[in-house]
């Protein structure tokens, strides 16, 4: 009995002590690369903690989809005040959980191509899916999705699997947005140029940098990393005349988080320069709101697609399975 009493007592004391601390604590769910040492997490955490005099607690899971799944499982019990790292293809499903409250932040300063009006999810960065190529190996890159689909089958591209990866789903939606009902035919053409289909972004991008694949599906801003961090000029993004599929990364306040005054503070902070300054060279994406100083000129040299393409997330959620099946039937032939 005796030796049981101490742990039980201390657990009880801890349990009592916890809510007291929690008043000054903000729990943010996010994904791993956000909290990585070179990610924006450490910078953002420091800046916000200095501003609010509180403690920010990041909980990071594998990626945006894992984030949504974790939240679905936890439901009302989730300790998360803020969920940061969903994207525009997941917002409808996330909203369907009924776990989110309005963010309450003015969208005046938010600048997303094609506009942004969501009252639940607030963007913190965006980018475009793009074909990134090795300029040392590809002399004439495709100038359109049509070029990519119909071009020389011996010039290969590594893509990601839409069943397992977010960029993979991005390409699927991109082709759908451009080709609509003809998407299956487009995939039949593109298939000839596909070197391989990898489970995630890392594997495909590794094929590009190891020299195995001359082209890869990635982001329009990927070359900025090589230019700024590595001083390497050979990787470029191809601009497609049909437009590029847009990815917007967003955060939302949970219903539980709506009761924590720090949540509103953080959401406002997220679209302020203190947060946005960290975005370009940690996320390698475009900031969603003004920064305090101009971006590195290299970002100015990145392609800026004229036409952002997007399929509403409700339509994505409802058709994803059918579209993936369509993709499977063509690509497995």
């Amino acid at each position: 009995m005796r030796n049981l009493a101490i742990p039980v007592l201390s657990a009880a004391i801890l349990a009592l002590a916890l809510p007291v601390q929690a008043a000054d604590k903000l729990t943010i769910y996010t994904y791993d690369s956000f909290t990585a040492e070179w990610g924006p997490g450490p910078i953002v955490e420091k800046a916000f903690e200095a501003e609010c005099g509180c403690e920010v607690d990041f909980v990071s899971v594998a990626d945006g989809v894992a984030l949504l799944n974790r939240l679905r499982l936890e439901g009302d019990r989730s300790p998360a005040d803020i969920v940061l790292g969903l994207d525009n293809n997941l917002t409808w499903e996330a909203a369907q959980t009924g776990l989110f409250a309005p963010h309450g932040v003015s969208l005046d300063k938010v600048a997303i191509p094609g506009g942004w009006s969501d009252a639940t999810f607030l963007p913190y960065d965006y980018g475009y899916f793009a074909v990134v190529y090795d300029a040392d190996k590809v002399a004439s890159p495709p100038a359109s999705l049509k070029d990519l689909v119909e071009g020389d089958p011996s010039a290969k591209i590594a893509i990601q699997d839409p069943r397992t990866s977010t960029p993979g789903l991005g390409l699927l939606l991109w082709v759908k947005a451009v080709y609509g009902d003809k998407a299956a035919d487009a995939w039949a053409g593109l298939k000839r140029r596909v070197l391989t289909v990898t489970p995630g972004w890392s594997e495909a991008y590794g094929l590009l940098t190891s020299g195995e694949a001359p082209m890869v599906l990635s982001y329009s801003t990927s070359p900025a990393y090589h230019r700024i961090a590595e001083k390497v000029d050979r990787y470029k993004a191809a601009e497609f005349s049909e437009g590029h599929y847009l990815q917007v990364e967003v955060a939302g306040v949970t219903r539980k988080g709506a009761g924590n005054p720090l949540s509103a503070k953080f959401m406002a902070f997220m679209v302020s320069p203190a947060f946005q300054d960290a975005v370009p060279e940690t996320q390698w994406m475009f900031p969603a709101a003004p920064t305090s100083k101009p971006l590195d000129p290299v970002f100015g040299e990145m392609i800026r697609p004229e036409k952002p393409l997007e399929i509403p997330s409700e339509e994505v959620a409802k058709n994803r399975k059918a579209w993936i099946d369509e993709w499977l039937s063509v690509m497995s032939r």
Partner: protein
Amino acid sequence: MPATRPLPGPLALAFVAVLVGGAFAGLLAEAASDPSGAAGAFDAYLGRIVRFTLWQAALSTLLSVAPAILVARALSRHPSFPGRSLILGLFAVPLGLPAIVAALGVLALWGRAGLFAPLMAWLSGGDWPGIYGLAGILVAHVFFNLPLAARLLLEALEAVPLDHWRLSAQLGMGARASFRLIEWPAMRAALPGVAALVFMLCVTSFTIVLMLGGGPAATTLEVAIYQALRFDFDPARAVALTLVQVALTVAAVAAMARLGASPTGEASLALAPRRYDRPSPAGTALDAVLIAAAVLFVAGPMAATVVAGLEADLGRLATEARVRDAAATSLLLAAAAATLSAALSLALVAMRRRLETARSSSRAGLLARLLEWAAGNGALFVLVVPPTVIGAGWFILLLPAGMVFAAAPVMVVAVNAVMAMPFAVRAIRPAHDAAAARHDRLAAQLGIAGWARLRLIDWPVLRRPLFTALAFAMALSLGDLGVIALFGSESVRTLPYLLMERMGSYRTQDAAGLALMLGALCLALMAAANRLGRERA
């Protein structure tokens, strides 16, 4: 009497059962709200991927295990030559490498722009499209599994009592005779187990299959399970698919056991002596060629990994606090997992042996037979329950208790320990059973039991296989990433985790450097195990 110390075995079984049962319980509880996904899992897509899964796994197993028999025999025939222990260490390194590293290593040689591309283009008289497709999957699987199978078969050969070799020499058996009468029976007894293990590893292959398969025509059940737990989070479907995977594997492994059933009276040596024959120069040369070929095949992709790794800023990496922390975390978790794994495995091996002996001395009930089967095989099928499924199930189970954060490292250790058991059991069982056959009666007559028996009789014999098992389990745990997708990673940032993180944010060179470190760590572990295993007690 054998039934007096029954505790560790059933405890080990219970541990495994709770780990898997808990995961299923969690997922089923979640699935109860919408069980429709389970029925939806059985469609034409499932039929196709089941066929592909089994086909590639069967081919991979054949291509890994058949050459491994020859390589193990060659290594066993030459117990000391320069570099032998290095080769044995090298053979364990693939286990510790994340699949993506191995895949990139294979592609550095056999890819479209690989080292052999010009040669292959010349041979095929056109452009070399790279080894994508079934061939690529097989090459990568053989890279992982041939060395593993060779090591485990060698373990079986080394469990052959010295007397047998001496007798064979005295009897002047030639190479062929000693193969037929000593080596083959010893390996054949271990073969169904080794083949089953390789088969299971190939059934559950994921990254390799997608990346080298060239497209979704190459899809395994494991991919479908992961898919079910991802975009459309559908636990019912995931559970149904996992059960299909387990059922198919059980069936396949049962068929294999039948094919390779160990003959009775295998080690009987009451046979006519043959002409005295030294290992012929031709035989030695053949062995050398075999070993060299296997080493080249395994070392090739590893060399590519080393070359890529050396381009990284290793000095900076090694001094980074984050890398050191990750290395320490990795070693700690892997050591804990390996110790647990070896203990569980030893308990199960001993239990199976005890039940087997009891069965031959009396009529055993159904329960005893079932337990014997479970101790021998049941736990091993855990390998085909995907870590993502175990992770997700336990996450659901632990959620109401609010123990998710604290549970992450425990989950990693428990799952890695159980996942490594098939390896550890393969390493321990031949030596254990052989020793038990020789010592049980004597020990009983002399009244040596318990701690004294362990220290005086079992330990000297089991020391080497136990250390091998530990090293294998550690290498395997070092490379693992699977369980914690939902848990949150703060407390379990391991080296492969860091590797994937760097790879996922453009830092390919750092990732290559970390892969090199992981490989070196595995090699060091194997060397340590080898040394510790050989020392006299």
